[in-house]
């Protein structure tokens, strides 16, 4: 690739991001009418909605991060065994749509739920309680992954000095752990808050009469086709995400200065380890409960009247079009993962491996902006911007919106790995006469295969489970499978929703397994090569 081609591709990507991220959002903001703002804000519902949304989201965020913190501590600060397996099991809830978490709770604790019927206790799921538990289930794995990452990279030498100085465990926690954790913890809290605050899946099925902002937005747009009111709520949902994004950006600039010199050493403590086992196992049992219920209900004759084994539900689900929508979902997920991988990787290559310039900084910033846009808001902005265009109503727009919605995380994964390479590699290749495209193919890609697999897997799984960005853009033809859940739920086809949840879960598990096997192959190949030369 010569310099001209290289520049052309860069501006092509920049133009693509402008059209697919910046323009739709600006258009959304421009569409808002002043009368509607006053109408929405002065409606009696509005104050309640804000109060509901904030109260429930704050409670759920607090509990979710707390749970994730305890689990991350059990995994990283105790001597329990099977830590890798525990960690994988904790993240299983990420493989199903948020709305499935709500459905799982309905099936277990709803008025006709398995637990309700079995024990005769009704926990009054619908409303505050359901929202908090469902949102926790949906968000804690993300917090767990982020916190594990932080705990793993704490420098032990500071703790050694503290021990020499005679500081107690509590003093160490207060003076070392907490200050170390403060900044990353803020990032985690904001990430979880935004996730829960903007999700309509859980409150739609277990929120009961309690109305939250995303549910209101969903109903206004889907039910009443009122885009302007939807846009106003969209802006309100955008606010915390944008604030979080800016704080996070500032946080990161100063936060990454420490380098680990010694990993944490865990002392012996049988009681602590025992309690950790109990806690981890109980958590896993609780998160597997809804999954087992989905599997169970998919294969009973008629819940709750006739619980004998049958394939009736499976057959009925396929009659209702589950097969076709599964193919939709697989197509969307595969295309999102493939195109998304190529786009995010190449963008990261441009920003990480060339000189800092205005266009590169812009590219970097726009690439991360998608972190700050709730899917439901992005989806609405696409409806308003792309309506009437060729891609509207096709699978392509769903692939596009997913790609943009999930752009930031794989982009950052690639950016971070590509940034770690020697800073002089470009200079060396320029003087040796090796073109940029050859460097990409012969050096960078072979070195970052595992990161690319991780990026692919992230994009695929998220495209399979998402119900946010795609919700307003899907029609009966291009509908992805996950969006059948709210439809079937409103038609009381409970067993079919269970079956869909388990199908999505199964597909994602298969993908994760495939990725695991490929990674293992890479490791084996590398070990063989290493063995040959040693």
């Amino acid at each position: 690739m010569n310099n001209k081609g290289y520049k052309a591709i860069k501006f092509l990507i920049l133009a693509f991001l402008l059209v697919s991220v910046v323009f739709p959002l600006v258009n959304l903001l421009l569409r808002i009418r002043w009368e509607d703002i006053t109408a929405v804000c002065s409606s009696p519902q509005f104050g309640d909605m804000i109060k509901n949304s904030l109260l429930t989201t704050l409670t759920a965020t607090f509990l979710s991060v707390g749970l994730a913190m305890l689990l991350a501590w059990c995994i990283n600060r105790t001597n329990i065994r099977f830590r890798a397996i525990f960690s994988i099991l904790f993240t299983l809830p990420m493989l199903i749509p948020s709305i499935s978490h709500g459905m799982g709770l309905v099936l277990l604790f709803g008025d006709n739920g398995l637990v309700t019927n079995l024990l005769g206790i009704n926990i009054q799921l619908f409303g505050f309680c359901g929202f908090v538990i469902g949102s926790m289930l949906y968000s804690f794995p993300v917090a767990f992954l982020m916190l594990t990452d932080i705990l793993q990279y704490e420098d032990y030498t500071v703790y050694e000095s503290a021990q020499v100085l005679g500081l107690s465990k509590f003093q160490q926690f207060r003076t070392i752990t907490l200050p170390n954790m403060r900044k990353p913890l803020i990032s985690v809290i904001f990430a979880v808050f935004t996730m829960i605050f903007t999700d309509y899946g859980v409150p739609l099925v277990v929120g009961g009469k309690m109305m939250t902002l995303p549910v209101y937005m969903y109903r206004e747009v889907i039910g009443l086709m009122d885009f302007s009111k939807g846009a106003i709520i969209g802006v309100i949902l955008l606010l915390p995400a944008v604030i979080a994004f800016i704080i996070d950006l500032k946080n990161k600039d100063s936060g990454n200065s420490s380098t680990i010199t010694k990993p944490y050493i865990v002392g012996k403590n049988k009681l602590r380890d025992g309690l950790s086992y109990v806690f981890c196992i109980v958590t896993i049992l609780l998160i597997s409960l809804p999954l087992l219920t989905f599997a169970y209900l998919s294969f009973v004759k008629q819940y709750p009247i006739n619980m004998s084994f049958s394939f009736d539900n499976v057959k009925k689900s396929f009659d209702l079009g589950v097969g076709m929508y599964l193919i939709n979902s697989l197509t969307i997920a595969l295309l999102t993962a493939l195109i998304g991988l190529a786009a995010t990787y190449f963008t990261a290559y441009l920003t990480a491996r060339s000189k800092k310039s205005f266009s590169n900084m812009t590219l970097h910033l726009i690439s991360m902006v998608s972190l700050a846009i709730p899917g439901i808001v992005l989806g609405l902005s696409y409806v308003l911007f792309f309506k009437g265009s060729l891609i509207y109503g096709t699978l392509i727009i769903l692939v596009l919106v997913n790609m943009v919605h999930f752009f930031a995380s794989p982009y950052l994964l690639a950016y971070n790995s590509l940034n770690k390479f020697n800073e002089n590699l470009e200079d060396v290749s320029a003087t040796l006469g090796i073109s940029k495209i050859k460097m990409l193919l012969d050096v960078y890609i072979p070195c970052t295969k595992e990161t690319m697999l991780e990026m692919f897997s992230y994009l695929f799984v998220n495209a399979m489970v998402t119900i946010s960005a795609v919700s307003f853009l899907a029609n009966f033809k291009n509908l992805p499978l996950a969006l059948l859940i709210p439809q079937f739920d409103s038609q009381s086809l409970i067993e079919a929703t269970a079956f869909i949840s388990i199908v999505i879960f199964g597909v994602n598990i298969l993908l994760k397994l495939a990725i695991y096997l490929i990674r293992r192959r890479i490791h084996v190949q590398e070990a063989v090569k290493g063995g040959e030369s040693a």
Partner: protein
Amino acid sequence: MHTYETENKLVVKNLSKIYDGTEILKNISFEVKKGEFLSVLGPSGCGKTTLLRILIGLERQDGGQILKDGKEISQLAPSARGMGIIFQNYALFPNMTVLQNVEYALKIRKDLAAASRKTAIHTLEQLGLEEHLDKKPNQLSGGQQQRVAIARTLALKPDIVLLDEPISALDVTNREIMKKELKAIQKKFDSTMIFITHEQEEAFYLSDRIMVMSEGNIEQIDTPANIYSHPANQYIKDFVIAHLEQKYESLLKCTGRIRHE
């Protein structure tokens, strides 16, 4: 016809470079003879690295000429200038073995591709790396990695080799070893070398001539012996002579060779 331009391997005339309003290189001129080992000595920020990057074409000058064998090369791409560069941090391709690292660059060159394997092995042997051909860079010591980087550059048979503080990242013992080796390598390959350093002692040990720079100017360019005996100005006295004498004060005291002014 022999002129000043063609007699010398490299002639730099009135080179200037400005960054954000600051003059990094202030109209400097010098020449490098064929087979010469020229050190560019100066503190950080004196413009020596910028000079090197401009010579090989990784950056463009704002004014002045660069003539190699009498021909202006400022318009040429870095790979077309017949020069090679070696960096402090080696910059090897991490996924390739030692042999592949050297062979890779050869394969791209049409004139060298046919014998790439042979040339790569031969060059690596000359640098004493024959036992490490199949190792990855991360299995080598810093000194070994630097020798691979040198082999990668020398295998392409450049007219001039530029070295950007190539041994500064090594520990003291290895630095001493590499210092001696560099000199031997230059003899073995009969190459013209421009060596950037901020270490007075390295420059004095290795160089045929030393070019002392400060704030974008050339303070003095001469043989080590002449610089020591006839420092051009107070800067040379402070930055070069005083520093060297301080370092070897105890030694010089014993031998009674310290200068008294």
